[in-house]
Structure formats: structure tokens, C-alpha cells
């Protein structure tokens, strides 16, 4: 199979990139692991959405409809697992592996939730806030009963506002953000950035009127076999569900496995180094959207279009002048969308690593204490840590524990995160069966 542009990920950035590439006359193959377009933010988006976050849902529904009529080939339930020079990509769908050669590749892998490890967080019943939002968007499930939220960041408040508006019930919220947060939240209102921060404060206000909010970092999850209670500052509260959140980080599982693709440490997370168009340091590979640095859905959609214009130029659709003329207004709009983000990053730095007994690597069951022991024995980085403890070597391939191990090693060494290299990933980035491989032969 051969296409002009291969786009990975059908969220805001990927869908916008595919549409723009089609508009410039390029052939497009769009792959997404999920059963339907949308990514995380636009998941299950409907044109008739109402309530908090509805503007995003409507934008997502519009994009998905435009994409369906664009002539872009869309494959859902398709998992990319390798990229080789060429570029050539390999993916699996319906039990078989496929190979596709592309003029250029635009990766739009989005984000993953940064896990928030605390005592008892591996118990069934403890999940991510993002996970609960997926349950709401993909299956219409609402929290009801003894459901607690804990952590920090805009998504926590958005989810709470969305769930309450739809009739969900939340028992309480544990706000773990830093002490100055409450005051700082008011500052940006004056900046009147494109509505984003003002909306965030409105969500927070609405939630606070309906749900008790505890401010604490002393939180434990307890239960026999599954979650039964949360203990806040030593006081137990009945709980069957605890939803944790500490922001989102770029999903770099694929980019870290690409030969020569440089990454940098910013806002407490690793991200691929990209220029304003989305070019990575590997020829023919671009990254668009939050997978190249978290700036939110609106900026991601613009990044997708900008990357597609760069690709159209590279593949000979038009010269530099036309590229710049088309991209100019998009770059300006993206700049405005990105403006509030640095402020949010400063407001919600990742929470500090937990106490020794708390598990960091859920797959290999490695505690924070064992990571600190390894550092005391001379372990300098997360890749070395694998040899010391097997942390990061389990089924998730570091997707969940990677950022946690990284910050724990950096903190134990007393150095900045930028000084500790991220976990290396390897193709295949998702497990493959022999049957799938046989389809390539």
C-alpha cells in the first residue's frame, strides 16, 4: 500500500491534518486504534451536545462529518506498531499486519493521563479521571454513589462539571494542588484568553457549589480486594470509586522508538522536539497536536492543519510562498490558543513522588522505595532502573509508570528531570501475534 500522507490518530490534530491534506489534493490514510474517530477530547462527540464542554463536542462532530466526506481513507481499530525509514509504517487490523509506504507521516498520538500514585492506588475501583470521562463519552456511564475525585488540573474540574450537569453524583473531591493555586486561578481571568480559562473557572465554581472539596495531600485508598474507603487526613470515608488525575502528558510511545527522533523535557514531561510546522528531527515524520506538547484541543486542530500544509509543500503541491500564505493565519490563531497553557503548567506542576511503600510500576509491582534503593546503589536513569528492578518492563511498556519512574529517579538523585533520560521504547510498540505477522508475508 502507498499513500501521500499517513496520519496516525483521529483526534482533533489527526482529523484536521487529514482534512487539510485532502483539501490540498493529497491521498490520505488515517489510522486510529479506537473503533470511532474523536480521540480523547472529541470521543463520542455529537452535534447536539449540551452543557460543559459542549462546544468541543460540536467542533468534534463537525470535523468527523467533514472527514467522512473528504475522500480520506479511514481505518479504525488499526494499531500502528512500527515506523521505519522511508518512511514505511506497519500496523495491525482485524488480526492481520499491514505495511504502508508514505510520502510523509503525521503522528497525532495525543496524550495519556499522568498517573497519580498514592497508597492503595492499584486497587480495583481506583481509576483515572480521564478513564471515567471515556466511560461517560463512550458508554454514557455516570458516577453515582460513593465516587471520589482526587488530584489537580483542569480535566478534573471539567469532568466533575460534566458529570454533575448530566445528573451524576460525586461524594467529594480532594484538591491536591499547590497552596497558591486558588489565588492564581483569578489572575488569568484578566487576560481574557480565548475563553478557556474563564470557562475553567466557571466549571470549578459550579462544582464547588455542589460537592464538598477537601484540600489535602494526605490521601489513601483502602479495601480488601477492591476499594472500600478513602482516608483523608486520617479520616475514613466510604468509597467504591476513586478517580485520580495529575494532568496529561504527551504520548511519546511511538516517537521515542523512532531512530534519531529527539525529545526534550518541558513542563514536567518529555515531548518530541518539533519546529513550528511539526517537523521532528527525523526526515519525513511530523508530530501534530498534544503529542508534541500539551496545548489543548483547539491548538491541536490548528497544528494538524499547519503540519498538513508543510507536508503538501514538501510533496510538491505548492511553493514556500503559498505555504506561508495559507499557514500564516493558522499560526497566529494557534499562538493565541497556546497563550494560557504556560500559565496552567506553572499552576499545576506534577505532584511529588509518593512515600516508599507506594507502587510506581503497576505491572512489575515495583515500589517507590525500591526505586530509591536502586538510585542509592548508583542507578542513574530509568533505562538502567529496568536492570535494577524490572520497573517499566511489564505489559504497559512504561506507558503508565514511565513518567512516575522518571520523576522518582530525578528527585532521588536531586537533579532536574531534563538530566534523566526517558524510558526507551522499542518497535513493536504494541504486542503482536504471530498470526498478525503472517499476514505480511
Amino acid at each position, binding site marked *: 500500500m502507498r499513500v501521500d500522507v499517513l496520519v496516525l490518530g483521529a483526534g482533533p490534530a489527526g482529523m484536521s491534518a487529514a482534512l487539510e491534506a485532502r483539501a490540498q489534493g493529497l491521498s490520505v490514510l488515517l489510522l486510529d486504534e479506537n473503533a470511532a474517530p474523536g480521540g480523547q477530547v472529541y470521543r463520542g462527540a455529537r452535534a447536539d451536545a449540551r452543557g460543559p464542554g459542549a462546544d468541543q463536542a460540536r467542533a468534534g462532530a463537525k470535523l468527523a462529518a467533514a472527514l467522512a466526506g473528504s475522500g480520506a481513507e479511514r481505518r479504525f481499530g488499526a494499531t500502528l506498531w512500527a515506523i521505519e525509514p522511508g518512511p514505511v509504517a506497519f500496523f495491525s487490523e482485524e488480526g492481520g499486519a499491514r505495511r504502508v509506504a508514505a510520502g510523509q507521516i503525521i503522528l497525532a498520538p495525543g496524550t495519556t493521563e499522568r498517573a497519580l500514585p498514592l497508597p492503595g492506588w492499584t486497587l480495583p475501583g481506583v481509576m483515572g479521571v480521564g478513564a471515567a470521562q*471515556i466511560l461517560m463519552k463512550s458508554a454514557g456511564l455516570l458516577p453515582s454513589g*460513593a465516587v471520589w475525585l482526587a488530584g489537580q488540573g483542569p480535566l478534573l474540574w471539567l469532568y466533575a462539571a460534566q458529570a454533575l450537569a448530566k*445528573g451524576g453524583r460525586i461524594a467529594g473531591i480532594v484538591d491536591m494542588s499547590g497552596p497558591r493555586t486558588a489565588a492564581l486561578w483569578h489572575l488569568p481571568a484578566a487576560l481574557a484568553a480565548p475563553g478557556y480559562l474563564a470557562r475553567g473557572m466557571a466549571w470549578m465554581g459550579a462544582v464547588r457549589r455542589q460537592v464538598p472539596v477537601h484540600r489535602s495531600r494526605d490521601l489513601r485508598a483502602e479495601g480488601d480486594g477492591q476499594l472500600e474507603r478513602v482516608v483523608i487526613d486520617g479520616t475514613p470515608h466510604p468509597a467504591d470509586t476513586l478517580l485520580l488525575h495529575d494532568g496529561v502528558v504527551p504520548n511519546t510511545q511511538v516517537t521515542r522508538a523512532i531512530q534519531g527522533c529527539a525529545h526534550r523535557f518541558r513542563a514536567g514531561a518529555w515531548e518530541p522536539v518539533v519546529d513550528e510546522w511539526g517537523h521532528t528531527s527525523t526526515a519525513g515524520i511530523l508530530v501534530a497536536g498534544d503529542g508534541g506538547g500539551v496545548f489543548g484541543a483547539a491548538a491541536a486542530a490548528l497544528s494538524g492543519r499547519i503540519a498538513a500544509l508543510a507536508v503538501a509543500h514538501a510533496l510538491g503541491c505548492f511553493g514556500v510562498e503559498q505555504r506561508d500564505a495559507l499557514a500564516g493565519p493558522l499560526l497566529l490563531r494557534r499562538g493565541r490558543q497556546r497563550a494560557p497553557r504556560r500559565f496552567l503548567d506553572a499552576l499545576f506542576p506534577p505532584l511529588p513522588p509518593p512515600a516508599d511503600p507506594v507502587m510506581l510500576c503497576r505491572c512489575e*509491582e515495583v515500589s517507590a522505595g525500591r526505586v530509591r534503593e536502586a538510585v542509592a546503589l548508583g542507578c542513574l536513569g530509568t533505562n538502567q532502573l529496568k536492570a535494577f528492578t524490572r520497573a517499566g518492563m511489564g505489559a504497559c511498556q512504561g506507558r*503508565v509508570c514511565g513518567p512516575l519512574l522518571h520523576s522518582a529517579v530525578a528527585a532521588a538523585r536531586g537533579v532536574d528531570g531534563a538530566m534523566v533520560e526517558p524510558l526507551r521504547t522499542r518497535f513493536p510498540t504494541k504486542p503482536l501475534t504471530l498470526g498478525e505477522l503472517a499476514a505480511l508475508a
Partner: protein
Amino acid sequence: MFQRTEPADCSIEWDGAVLPARTGEPLAAALLAAGVVRLRGTVLSGAPRGAFCMMGACFDCVVQVEGAVVQACMVAVTPGMKAAP
């Protein structure tokens, strides 16, 4: 717990028990809506685990569906689907 806003339209089997479900929703969502929180024990220590990320990242939701090992959050429910730890 989680509560449905849209009615179930089919049933699935979990470890022999018949549970209501909705065609096309993630298997992990159907299980959670039916109150099934614990999905498996870890290989290392047998510690209990359930769906955690719902986006195919954590692999804590790994179950068997008709003999194949799958992530329950990434598999869409089909009527009559048989799943087990």
C-alpha cells in the same frame, strides 16, 4: 459505582454470569456498569486489578474473550460475548 444513562440492549457472559450490556460499548464499561470491578490478579503476587486507564495504556484490564487475550477497554461488546478473567 457507575450508572447507565442509556439502556442495555443485549447480554454478555462474564465468568459464566449473564450481565446486561450495550452493543458497541467497551467491554470494560459493560463490566463496570454491572458492578464488576475486579478483573484479574497480577501474575507476580496475585494482587487484584481492574480497569484503570480505559484507553489501552495500562494493560490492567486484560481478560479472555472467546479464548483470545484482550484489553477489555479496547474491545467493543457484541451480543452474547463470552469473557472471563
